């Protein structure tokens, strides 16, 4: 861990000001950024210890929880402050009842201790678990060191993505909560320097790796996520998060699906599907959703939709199973959601 100066932010404007010209991703070369925000710290300190991230300055925004730590549910939907702890949102009865996919995605992530620490804003920005990225002794990693290559392409890639990858990076987006937000058409609020604030679609937050896997999000330099808004919709209650993994708990997904359905009897009015564990970024399966609209949700329809979701999948040596697994995960999640008692 490189030395850094440490400051506590007393206001979001001040926090953003401290990071002007820096940003979390822009200009990141070999992980060396002038400054980073510190919230729960569960990703940042982890990667700083590994020397993957080397900020010269930390701006601790944990103290802003009074302003960005609220959960509110009203007619328009669900509002989540960015500094809400994962555990708080996971255990919130309103979220469990009305937005179960959100609560489940959080409950099934990490461990109780980590959920007590990590914030929702930090959660969506967690970085890939690709071992070649996390271990600086591997020289080839385009995400960590642009232009250096990708050791995972012909390395151990059982955990790696089959959707949304590029020839420069096949790292998997590791989170769970993001898929729930994506499936429910969430937006996020962002604060920037000099009081500048904006709202963006959650679907626009993560950037596919393409030729620049080091650029992971659309946040501008100094911007900080302040909250999420999940619009009220007919499908939010009939929603669930299915996470498939080797062990029962405390593991990142091999494949996961956030699904939400608006049903007219056995017929789908609208479906929402987002995939995790299989893609480079939180992955919305729009073709699969469209294929289900107006269909009776049975095994055949779910299987056909799942096939569409993985139509563009590209496998490497060890992750081909994710194409079959991902489809079965979608089928299982859809059929389970269809039969939910709500």
């Amino acid at each position: 861990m490189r030395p850094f100066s440490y400051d506590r932010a007393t206001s979001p404007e001040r926090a953003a000001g401290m990071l002007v010209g820096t940003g979390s991703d822009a200009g990141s070369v070999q992980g060396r950024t002038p400054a980073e925000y510190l919230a729960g710290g569960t990703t940042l300190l982890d990667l700083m210890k590994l020397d993957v991230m080397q900020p010269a300055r930390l701006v601790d925004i944990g103290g802003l929880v009074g302003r960005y730590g609220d959960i509110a549910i009203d007619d328009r939907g669900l509002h989540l402050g960015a500094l809400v702890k994962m555990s708080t949102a996971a255990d919130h009865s309103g979220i469990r009842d009305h937005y179960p996919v959100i609560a489940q995605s959080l409950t099934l992530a990490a461990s109780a201790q980590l959920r007590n620490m990590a914030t929702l804003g930090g959660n969506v920005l967690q970085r890939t678990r690709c071992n070649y990225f996390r271990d600086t002794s591997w020289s080839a990693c385009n995400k960590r060191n642009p232009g250096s290559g990708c050791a995972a392409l012909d390395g151990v890639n059982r955990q790696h993505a089959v959707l949304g990858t590029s020839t420069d990076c096949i790292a998997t987006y590791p989170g769970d909560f993001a898929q729930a937000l994506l499936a429910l058409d969430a937006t996020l609020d962002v604060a920037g320097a000099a009081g500048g604030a904006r709202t963006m679609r959650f679907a626009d937050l993560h950037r596919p790796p393409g030729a620049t896997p080091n650029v992971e999000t659309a946040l501008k330099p100094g911007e900080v996520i302040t909250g999420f808004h999940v619009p009220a919709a007919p499908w939010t209650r009939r929603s669930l998060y299915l996470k498939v993994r080797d062990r029962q708990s405390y593991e990142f997904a091999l494949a996961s699906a956030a699904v939400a359905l608006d049903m007219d009897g056995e017929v789908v009015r609208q479906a929402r599907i987002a995939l995790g564990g299989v893609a480079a970024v939180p992955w919305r399966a729009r073709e699969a959703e469209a294929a289900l609209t107006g269909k009776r949700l049975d095994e055949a329809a779910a299987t056909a939709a799942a096939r569409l979701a993985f139509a563009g999948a590209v496998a490497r040596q060890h992750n081909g199973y994710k194409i079959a697994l991902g489809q079965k995960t979608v089928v299982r999640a859809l059929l389970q959601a269809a039969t939910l008692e709500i």
Partner: protein
Amino acid sequence: MPDYDDREARAFVSRRRFIGVTASTAALPLVGGPARAETAETAAAPVDPSAPVDMTLRINGERHRLGLDVRTTLLDALRDHVGLTGSKKGCDHGQCGACTVHVDGERVLSCLTLAVAVGDREVTTIEGLARADAPLHPMQQAFVDNDAFQCGYCTPGQIMSAIGCVKEGHADNDDAIREYMSGNLCRCAAYPNIVAAVRQAKAQMGG
């Protein structure tokens, strides 16, 4: 009991803590004071980030004034600078739970917590549960009764996590205990006994 090592150790630690505090006179203000630069470009120049930072930690009801490298985690502060070695380092990356402590009553991982970021929040470690020769906390006693450990290394973290599990209301049944205790690896694999211990202690804690 091999307790003579402990006495040696405590004598050494108190000396180290003293050194730590005297060194802290060179510390910097924590919150953007006048000596602190406002932008990243100027921040690097005049400030020596390796200089010790003055901080006061509230641990098990006592205040500890320390001068520490700003990079020091709460876990390393406890173990190497305060002399509370009950909290264990098993991975240093939030993957095992051996370092679990309570901060303001919530179970968290001290290995992924910067000491300087703890501020004035109250830290409780395994040493804060029962004083020497005093009766054990019901969770500690339940771990003894149910043989909920073998080597004992993950045990302080398990116990701190288990108390959190009960207080959070996540110990209503064995399935919940198993799930909400899954952040604490036990390589000796005392898991069924840990579940039994949490069940026993929950009844006594009124959880």
